[in-house]
């Protein structure tokens, strides 16, 4: 074999490797794209992310400017979504609030899912006392009043936005742990796990490479559902001094502030409510599509 040819070959394999990854990614995207609904979900999520990124540019008004004279205005040309109880432009607040709410929602769900998954995997894979201990801890966590946990977290870590995410994340740990444990139990029994074990793989490899990807789908469903709860409970914590402090336009907090005006100025609660719902809706159908696209078996 001539050296040049050899070089050519190795070059070729590199190109091939890259194109392979690209190909797989493309195949994934193609599959995802074919799911019309998921695509819509994706666009909704993307839309909100873009809104968050470009908030200062697209926001029509100063979201913090208090104008008590013009408070509680219904939607008008000046204020597309009306003004809140302090005369602030609701649309602008929603736009800025997307930064907070998206971050808090995503990060806390991610955090809760991450820890929940780890616990669930350990409990499900090792079983026995590991399972008993983890699941009983999870029971406790579930039975524990959220406000107490939140208070504990502030007193231990102090109030900050990150700690809100921690607190909200902690609330979601048990849900994820339980779901993951259940799926792990069933995946663990599959023959390919034994096959990999027979090859001499360590437990860590098995858990990470072989069990984890196969439990992902219920996790995605749960995560997309948790998002709403996360955004709402983050707002619930701000009064404990834990969340974003006023006048931060957190969606959940905006929604709660509408509580006093449910009848006199319903738009105050309505628009944040719509924002949360559509985000959650988008995220859910996006999640479903993602799950299908990630699954090589779904041929669609």
């Amino acid at each position, binding site marked *: 074999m001539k050296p040049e040819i050899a070089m050519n070959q190795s070059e070729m394999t590199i190109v091939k490797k890259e194109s392979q990854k690209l190909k797989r990614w493309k195949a994934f995207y193609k599959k995802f794209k074919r799911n019309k609904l998921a695509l819509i979900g994706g666009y909704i999520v993307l839309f909100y992310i873009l809104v968050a990124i470009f908030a200062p540019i697209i926001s029509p008004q100063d979201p913090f400017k208090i104008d008590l004279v013009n408070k509680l205005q219904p939607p008008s040309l000046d204020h597309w979504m009306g003004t809140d109880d302090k005369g602030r432009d609701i649309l602008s607040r929603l736009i800025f609030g997307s930064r907070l709410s998206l971050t808090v929602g995503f990060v806390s769900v991610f955090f809760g899912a991450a820890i929940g998954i780890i616990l669930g995997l350990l409990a499900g894979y090792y079983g026995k006392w590991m399972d*008993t201990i983890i699941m*009983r*801890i999870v*029971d*406790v966590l*579930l*039975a*524990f*009043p*959220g*406000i*107490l*946990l939140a*208070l*504990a977290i*502030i*007193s*231990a870590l102090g109030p900050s936005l990150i700690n809100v995410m921690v607190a909200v994340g902690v609330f979601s740990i048990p*849900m994820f742990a*339980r779901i993951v444990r*259940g799926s792990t139990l069933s995946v663990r029994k599959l023959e390919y796990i034994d096959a990999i074990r027979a090859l001499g793989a360590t437990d860590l490899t098995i858990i990470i490479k072989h069990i984890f990807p196969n439990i992902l789908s219920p996790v995605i*469903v749960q995560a997309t*559902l948790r998002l*709403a*709860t996360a*955004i*709402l409970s983050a707002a619930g914590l701000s009064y404990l001094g834990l969340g974003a402090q006023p006048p931060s336009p957190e969606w*959940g907090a905006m*929604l*709660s502030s*509408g*509580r006093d005006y*449910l*009848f006199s100025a319903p738009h105050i*609660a309505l628009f944040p*409510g719509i924002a*949360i*719902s559509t985000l*959650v*809706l988008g995220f*859910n159908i996006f999640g479903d599509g993602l799950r299908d696209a990630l699954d090589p078996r779904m041929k669609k």
Partner: protein
Amino acid sequence: MLLFIIRRILQTIPVLLGVSLVVFLIMQMVPGDPATLLAGEGATKQTIEMVRHELGLDRPIIYQYFDYVFHAIQGDFGESLRNNRPVLDEIMIRLPITLQLALASILITVVLGMIAGIISATKQYSMADISIMIIALLGISLPSFWFGLMLIYFFSVNLHIFPVAGWGTIQHMILPAITLGAGGAAIVARMTRSSMLEVVRQDYIRTARAKGLKEHIIIYKHGLKNALIPVITVVGLQFGALLGGTVLTESVFAINGLGRLIVDAIRTRDLPMVQGGVLIASVIFVFMNLAVDVLYRYFNKRIDLN
């Protein structure tokens, strides 16, 4: 099975010890002093110290904890710092109410959720399916105070069908149960849908068809009971969430439940009450989990006997 149940019950003992320790530590850490809060506006330092002494809060912390545990083991959960009533009495007033509420809303969750889920599943991708799923997702993203107040204004203030607030009769239960159950119903609907879609693909459904059964018998008799298995898990989880997540609904409907008791106790730093409340909630929760596990095993014994 019985032994399994007993074993699980015994397992809860260390869990409860753990819970009480964690509650205790958290309450120590949390800012806010029960004596100051109790002494009220304008109390002098001496008054606060006197109150603190009265409550026994000036004893060493370790001593306080072991004293608590020692008494708790004997069934004495102490007295509320706020009103000096026995914690257990206070809890027992609320417990039945909370359980009734939780059960009523679980019923709503299950009934609404399953009906919606079944319709969705049997008419997959129809308009009905899509709208049910969208409504379900809205249900999840709506805060309960909003939903509850809307119900009150619609059904109580405008239509005079149900009382606004309080507890005692079936009429009192309906609105709060719907408020509480709605979010769970959404989750159950989603779950039922996917579970049902799974079940209708099963061989025994085909067997049922081959017998010549009518479609609705196939769905409701042969399908549903099987589709319930994963739903039970979710319902169990929901039930847990109900015990903790009732505070807002209890407030809106002025229901004297455990959730509010615990939150109020936390806000007033009423340690024995918090302890007692959380412990009881944990016990209920553990039992609930146990019930779910038992049901799960019952339905699932064909799959996994160990």
